[in-house]
């Protein structure tokens, strides 16, 4: 019997990575980025896409916040709630590992 899995909670030091069963790719037919998963295809908007592209297992949530803050000319504190909420939801839906 394996150890019981637990829900992961996002923190500033979490290092999110897209799950192996998801794939982020550009779709030339619709000229849009798609995130492919077992039963669904997601069409992330611009901000979601910027977050997902940084879910590469190299960037911590803190680094993602800093990066997005500079791109969108906001403070990391201002965007933290939205970004962390997004990552928590995607973790809970088994699309991102924290």
């Amino acid at each position: 019997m394996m150890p019981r899995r637990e829900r992961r909670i996002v923190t500033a030091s979490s290092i999110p990575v897209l799950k192996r069963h998801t794939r982020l790719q550009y779709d030339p037919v619709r000229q849009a980025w798609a995130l492919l998963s077992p039963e669904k295809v997601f069409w992330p908007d611009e901000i979601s896409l910027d977050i997902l592209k940084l879910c590469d297992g190299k960037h911590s949530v803190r680094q993602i916040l800093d990066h997005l803050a500079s791109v969108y000319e906001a403070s990391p504190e201002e965007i933290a709630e939205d970004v962390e909420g997004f990552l928590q939801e995607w973790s809970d839906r088994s699309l991102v590992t924290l």
Partner: protein
Amino acid sequence: MVRQIFGDAMTQTILPPIGMLAELTHRCPLQCAYCSNPVELLKANREMATEAWLALFDQAADLGVLQIHLSGGEPTLRPDLEVLVERLANRGVYTNLITAGVSLAEGRMEALAQAGLDHVQVSFQGAFAPTTEKIGNHRGAHEKKMETARQVRAAGLPLTINAPIHRHNIEEVPAFIDLALALNAERLEIANVQYAGWALLNRNALMPDRASVERQVETVRKAQEDLYGILAIDFITPDYFAMYPKPCMGGWARDAFVVAPDGSVLPCHAAGTIPDLVFDRFGDKSLAEIWLQSKAFNAFRGTDWMSEPCRSCERQEIDWGGCRCQAMALAGSAAETDPACAKSPLHARMATLIDEAMAADRDEFRYRRIGSPVLERQ
């Protein structure tokens, strides 16, 4: 932040398809009495050859298909499965293998992973060996499935457990949840049987009673809450007990289609039960021609075909009229509202059919076999 469906303001515009269910073969080692394949199964000599499937997959990728579910019958009975997967992986198409998991030779899962397979769904007919063996009519099936599921994980592939639910296993729903956790699956589908094809033939034997359905709903809701962020549980509720119909295929010919083993292209896997629909075959026509022009696809596309109560319903682009095949089977016309909808004048008939099933001889099964269906006592 994310929308799931491409084209928010879908009306009658024909958008490119997103998903395809490829029924590579109708051959299967299991004989489940609710199989979604047609009652008239195709023999091996009617199956498309490797080259034809590859050509079809290329055209599908060109057309915009992003996800292909490799199914059957049992798709691993095709020795060319790795070749098909490899082509799809090269084209950037997401591949989902839907398998019974009882017929994989050693090393096959690893080879499929190497070919670029993205995801595997293994069906379990029961949460315990006796149920799995009885429903699939296949001795040793449960242990083989457990082993296949372990091989999926060993190959580093993500795993979904699919549990088709009916009267004979509905009490095992809690055990299915434990099983999915024990096998370290990412997802569990608790999928109540849909009464089309074989399941319609066996409706009386498969129909659960109301108390069991209510218990099941409670169990699944609680597990979804308790296991939030741990195990994703998709719940496909039983139509006959529902208030609203399912948006079958996400809307007829809207973003997905089915290809039968012989290359016939259908809007849904049961569409053959609707008389008068004529289906085009890949090879006679290109996939793009079929998607855009097939009369069967255009018959119920969008909302123009709808009559009341769908026509003026605010849910018409949520439910898309429900299931055309269920309307055919229960209302006698595929253009009627799915009687699963509480607004259908025939909705009360669903309750009558449940009662009739409760009163009928409920241990007679027609097992899924190639050739004419035969009644058997379990």
